[in-house]
């Protein structure tokens, strides 16, 4: 008897096409549509006030530890945060496609920005940037090993940034799909267990909402930390 394992679990991560038209562009451009630019009225409506206050508070918060040279990055970091959090949260709606589950997109965010922080550091203050490779207070015998380790950790950063975001979101989506198909299946067979799985699913959805927001924040936060080291 031949056992066929059909991996239909990863179907949700395939790039969507409709009649040959790639829909990825629409999924990626969705945050642009959802955030209208501030109107030129004196008193704005509720949603605009909420949007503005979120963006301004976030910008203030993220720029707090950065010194003046890094304030040029304010717009970029804020836009990145808003974009990532919207993409993540939109992916939790049914039938939608989450572009941030695709590794190339996240690497496209991570690698250029990380490289920019490194190059800025090496260009403006090369001694200090290289000095980051050896933390203060290391015992003398450990120095060669530690430099190698710190260099490796420096080069792993973009991969860590990208893969962290991808893995968190993809794992969450996968769990949701598995739990929901388990619940649907169990309703026929043993419905008390289906109630249990449904409960786990509800909790997981709450977790996913949190993860979506948190992961976006962590991405931007780490990037700002790398920037802080290098300016």
């Amino acid at each position, binding site marked *: 008897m031949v056992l066929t394992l059909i991996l*239909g679990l990863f179907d949700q991560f*395939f790039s969507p096409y409709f009649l040959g038209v790639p*829909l990825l562009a629409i999924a990626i451009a969705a945050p642009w*549509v*959802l955030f209208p630019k501030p109107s030129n009225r004196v008193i704005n409506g509720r*949603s605009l006030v909420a949007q503005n206050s979120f963006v301004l508070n976030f910008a203030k918060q993220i720029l707090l530890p950065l010194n003046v040279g890094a304030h040029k990055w304010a717009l970029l970091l804020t836009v990145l945060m808003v974009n990532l959090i919207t993409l993540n949260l939109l992916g939790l709606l049914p*039938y939608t*496609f989450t572009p941030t589950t695709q590794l190339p997109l996240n690497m496209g965010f991570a690698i250029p920005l990380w490289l920019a922080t490194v190059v800025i550091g090496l260009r403006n203050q090369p001694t200090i940037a290289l000095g980051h490779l050896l933390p203060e207070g290391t015992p003398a015998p450990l120095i060669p090993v530690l430099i190698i380790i710190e260099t490796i950790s420096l080069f792993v950063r973009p991969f860590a940034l990208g893969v962290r975001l991808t893995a968190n979101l993809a794992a969450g989506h996968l769990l949701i799909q598995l739990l929901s198909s388990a619940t649907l299946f169990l309703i026929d067979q043993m419905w008390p267990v289906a109630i249990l799985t449904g409960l786990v699913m509800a909790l997981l959805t709450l977790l996913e909402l949190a993860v979506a927001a948190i992961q976006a924040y962590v991405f931007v936060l780490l990037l700002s930390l790398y920037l802080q080291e290098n300016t």
Partner: protein
Amino acid sequence: MADRAVPVVEKRLMEVKLGEIGTWVGGRDFTPNGMISSVRKGYERYLNKYIHVKKGGIGGLSMVLAGYVVLSYVWSFDHIKHDRMRKYH
């Protein structure tokens, strides 16, 4: 009945009679600028009606998200239809 006759093409969509729809669509501005401007005008009409209001509620955003969900379902139907209630997936 005392108003002057307005050419069909310039009427707003809600005032076009059913029989005149063909003429109306044919007379619209299909240049790229025209299409982009009509999309932008529609976007701003939606914004001004539902979002840039003093006490805009959750409905303004929810309608957009619901439309997005429905559209995504339509787009992914061809892929999903293989998962219908069947014994062997």
